[in-house]
C-alpha cells in the first residue's frame, strides 16, 4: 500500500511536471521578430516600484522612453502595455500592478476607447498569456474572450498551442526557462527610420460616441485611482493615424473635466514636443522610434515634474544601481538594433 502511494505521488509529479514542461516548450516565445507577447510578463522581474505607470497599447510602449525619464528627471516609470491592449485589459493590468506597487501617477492612453468589444484572439493571447494568475487575470480573460475562445485554453495554454510541436525552433528550447528582455521598463525601442507618409482620409462614422462597455472601464479606472489616491492622466499620443476624431477628443475632454482628471491630446503639440516625423518614426508615422520616444519622454517628463512634484531619484541609492544596469541594457539594445538595421 505504501509503495502504491509513493508510486502514485511520483506519477502525478511526472505527469504534471511533464505537462508543465511541454506547455512551456510549446508556448510561443515572442523573442524574434514579434516581441509583443513577451512584454507583460517582464514586469514581474521588477524589484522596485515606480513613480509613474503608463498603461495602454502601442501608443505608450513604443512612444515613451522610460530611460529618458530617468536620465533627465530621475523619474522611475514603467509601461504596462501590449499590442492592441483593450481598455479592460489596461484596467485589469492596472488593478494587478497596484497589488505590487503604488505609483504616484498613472498615465492612460485613450486610443483603445474606440473598441467596445473583444477583437482578436492573437492580441488577447499576447496580452493575457504573460499575466500571473490572480482574480484580475480571470476577470480580464472573461472580458476579453472572443466568441470562439474558451476559458480553459487560458488556464491550460497547452490546449491552445499544442499543435506547435510541428513548428518548434531552437528558440523554443533556448528561451524555455529564461527569456531575454524585449523592453526596458516596458519601453520597446526601435532605431530604424521611415518617414511619415500620407495617411488615408478619415472615414466618417455613423456614431462617434464611445461604447458603453469601454466607458464603463474608464469609469472603473478613474474610481480605482481615486480610491488609491493616485493621479490619473489621460493622454492621446502624438500620432495622427489611426485617426483620432475631434468628436472623440471632445468626449474625453468633457469626461476629464467632469471627473477632475487631466487630459492631454498631444497631437497638436507635436511641434512643441519637437517631433520631426520625417525622422522620428520607424513605420511611416504609426509609431515613434527611439529618437522620437526620447523627445516625447523629455517633454512629458518636464510636464509631470512641474505639475505632480515627482521626486528626483537619481541620487537615491535604492535606485541608482538598478538603473545603472537598465541604462546599460538600453544602450546595448540601441546598439544591437542599429546593427540589425544596418544589416538590412
Amino acid at each position, binding site marked *: 500500500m505504501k509503495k502504491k502511494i509513493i508510486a502514485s505521488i511520483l506519477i502525478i509529479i511526472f505527469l504534471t511536471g511533464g505537462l508543465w514542461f511541454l506547455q512551456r516548450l510549446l508556448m510561443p516565445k515572442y523573442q524574434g521578430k514579434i516581441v509583443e507577447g513577451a512584454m507583460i510578463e517582464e514586469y514581474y522581474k521588477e524589484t522596485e516600484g515606480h513613480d509613474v505607470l503608463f498603461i495602454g497599447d502601442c501608443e505608450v510602449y513604443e512612444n515613451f522612453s522610460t530611460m529618458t525619464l530617468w536620465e533627465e528627471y530621475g523619474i522611475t516609470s514603467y509601461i504596462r502595455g501590449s499590442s492592441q491592449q483593450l481598455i479592460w485589459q489596461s484596467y485589469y493590468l492596472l488593478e494587478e500592478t497596484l497589488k505590487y506597487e503604488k505609483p504616484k501617477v498613472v498615465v492612460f492612453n485613450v486610443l483603445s476607447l*474606440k*473598441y*467596445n*468589444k473583444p477583437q482578436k484572439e492573437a492580441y488577447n493571447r499576447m496580452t493575457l498569456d504573460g499575466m500571473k494568475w490572480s482574480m484580475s487575470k480571470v476577470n480580464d480573460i472573461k472580458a476579453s474572450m472572443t466568441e*470562439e475562445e474558451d476559458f480553459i485554453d487560458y488556464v491550460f495554454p497547452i490546449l491552445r498551442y499544442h499543435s506547435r510541436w510541428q513548428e518548434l525552433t531552437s528558440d523554443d528550447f533556448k528561451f524555455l526557462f529564461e527569456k531575454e528582455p524585449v523592453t526596458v521598463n516596458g519601453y520597446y525601442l526601435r532605431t530604424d527610420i521611415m518617414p511619415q507618409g500620407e495617411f488615408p482620409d478619415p*472615414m466618417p*462614422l*455613423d*456614431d462617434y460616441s464611445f*461604447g*458603453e*462597455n469601454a466607458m464603463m472601464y474608464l469609469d472603473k479606472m478613474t474610481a480605482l485611482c481615486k480610491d488609491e489616491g493616485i493621479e490619473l492622466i489621460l493622454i492621446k499620443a502624438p500620432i495622427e493615424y489611426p485617426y483620432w476624431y475631434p468628436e472623440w477628443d471632445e468626449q474625453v475632454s468633457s469626461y476629464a473635466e467632469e471627473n477632475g482628471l487631466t487630459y492631454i491630446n498631444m497631437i497638436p503639440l507635436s511641434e512643441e514636443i519637437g517631433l520631426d516625423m520625417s525622422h522620428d518614426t520607424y513605420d511611416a508615422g504609426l509609431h515613434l522610434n527611439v529618437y522620437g520616444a526620447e523627445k516625447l519622454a523629455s517633454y512629458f517628463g518636464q510636464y509631470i515634474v512641474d505639475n505632480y512634484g515627482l521626486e528626483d531619484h537619481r541620487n537615491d541609492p535604492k535606485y541608482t544601481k538598478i538603473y545603472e544596469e537598465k541604462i546599460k541594457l538600453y544602450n546595448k539594445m540601441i546598439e544591437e538594433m542599429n546593427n540589425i538595421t544596418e544589416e538590412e
Partner: protein
Amino acid sequence: MNMQQRNVMEYLDKTVLQYPDKVAFSNGDIKSDLTFAELYKSSRAIGSLLSIRGYYAEPVVVFMKKHPNAVSAFFGCVYGGCYYVPIDEEMPKFRTELILQTLKPRVMICDEETAELSRGMDYDGEVILYDEAIKTAIDDQRLGKIRDEQIDTDPIYIVFTSGSTGIPKGVVACHRSVIDYIENLSEVLEFNHETRFANQTPLYFDACLKELYPTLKFGATTVIVPKQLFMFPVKLVEFLNEHKVNTVCWVVSALTMISSFKTFEKVKPEYLDNIAFGSEVFPIKQLNIWREALPNAGFTNLYGPTEATGMCCYFKVDREFDLDDTVPIGGPFRNTRILLLNEKNELCKDGEEGEICVVGTSLTMGYYKNFEKTREVFVQNPLNDLYPELIYRTGDIGKRNSRGELCFVSRKDYQIKHMGHRIELGEIEVNVNNIEGIRHCCCVYDKEKDKIRLFYSGDIETGEVITVLKDKLPRYMIPNKVEKLDRLPLTANGKIDRKKLASM
C-alpha cells in the same frame, strides 16, 4: 418625395411628355424596343380593355416571355386598376399551377407563344392576347375615372416568393410602398435620365422593380439581358458595353460569375459605374476583383425582403475589407426603420445578434389569401404596447459592427447546432470563398445525419480546400463532407439553390 403622388403610373404620365421618343425598355433587339410613347399608348390600351371587359381590382396574370411587352402589360394592369401577377414559362410547372390555384384569376394576358402553353394549364378564365389588346381604343374617360377612384394602398402586383418551406407565398404590394421604395432607392443610387439599366432578374421577382419604376420616373432606359448570356461571362460584358449599360442591380451570383472566370482579363465593362448587388453575401475576394477592374465605379450592397417591397437597407462600399469580413448591409433607406430584436424581443445591445425587423411604409400588405402566414411574420411591434404598429420579421440574423453598421449574419435557419457547438454556416462559406480558385461555394446542414456539407465549384481540389480550412477553422467547424461540383445549381433568380444542394 413627391407627397401628392398616389399612383405609380404618374411617373409614366409625366415622363412621356418629356421623352416621348426615347427608348424605355429594350431587349437588345431594335424591333422589340419600346419608347415611352409606345409604352404609354400600349399600356393604356390594355388598361382600357381590362376595364371594358369588366375586370377591376383583381389579379391579372401576365404570362409572357421576358420581353419589353411584358412590362407594358404590367403597366396596363395598373392603369386598369388591377394588379399584375407575373408568371413565366421558365417557372417550374408546379409553381405556376400553385399560383393559379391560389389566385383563381379570371383573366390572363399572354403573347402568341404563351397563349399556346396556357391551354395546357389548369386554367379556365379568359386569355387576352397582348397583340390584340394593344389595338383597343384608349378610353381616357374610363382610365381617368379609375385613377380618381384609386387610393395608394391599392395593390399593384403580387409576386410569389419561395420561402424557406418551399411553398410559394404571394406578396401583395401597393402603390404607396412601391413609390416609397423607388423614391428612396433612386436617391441612394443617384439614378437620372441618363441611367441605362441592365435587367438580370426574371420579371416575376420583385427585384426587377429596381429597374422598371426608376426607368419611368427618370425617363431612363432598361435593357433586358437575355438569360442565356449569364452563362457566357465574356459575351455578357460585351453586351453591357454594346448597350452602354452604366447601372446594374443584380444578385451576387450573377456578378461573381463574371469575376470568378477572369473575364476582366479579356474585356472590361466600359460604361458601368453604378453597381448594386444583393440577396446574397458578396465574397470579398470577388468584390475586390470587381473594384480593381472598375476603380471608379460605385458599389452598393442592398438588402431587403420581398415582404418589405424589395430592398430596405443599403451600404455604399467605402473602404477596403479584409478577406474574412463581410460587406455590411449598412442602414435603412429613408422612411424605413430597422429593429434588431433578440430572442427576448428586446432591442439588441452593441454587437449582440438579433433578428432584423422592418418597420415603415415599405412594408407590403402581406400574403395573398394567407392570413395565417401573414400574421406569423407581420406582427405587432413588441416594443410598442400602446397602439397598433406592424413590423415585418425577416427571419434574418443581423448585428451592428463597431462602426454601428448593420451586418447580415445569416438566415435564422443557417445557424445550426452541431456537435454541441453553435455554428454559423455563413462563416464557413466566408472562409471557403476566400480560398484562391473557388468560384462558388455553399454550405448546408443535414439534420438527420448531423453533418455539415460543403459544395463548391472552382479549379481547386478538395485536398487543398481541407488543408486551408484546417488552419482557419476550429475542428468542429470543418465540414463533414466536402464535394466539388462542376457548377452549383441556381434558383430561377440566379441565387445558389440551397434546397437542391441539401437534397443531393
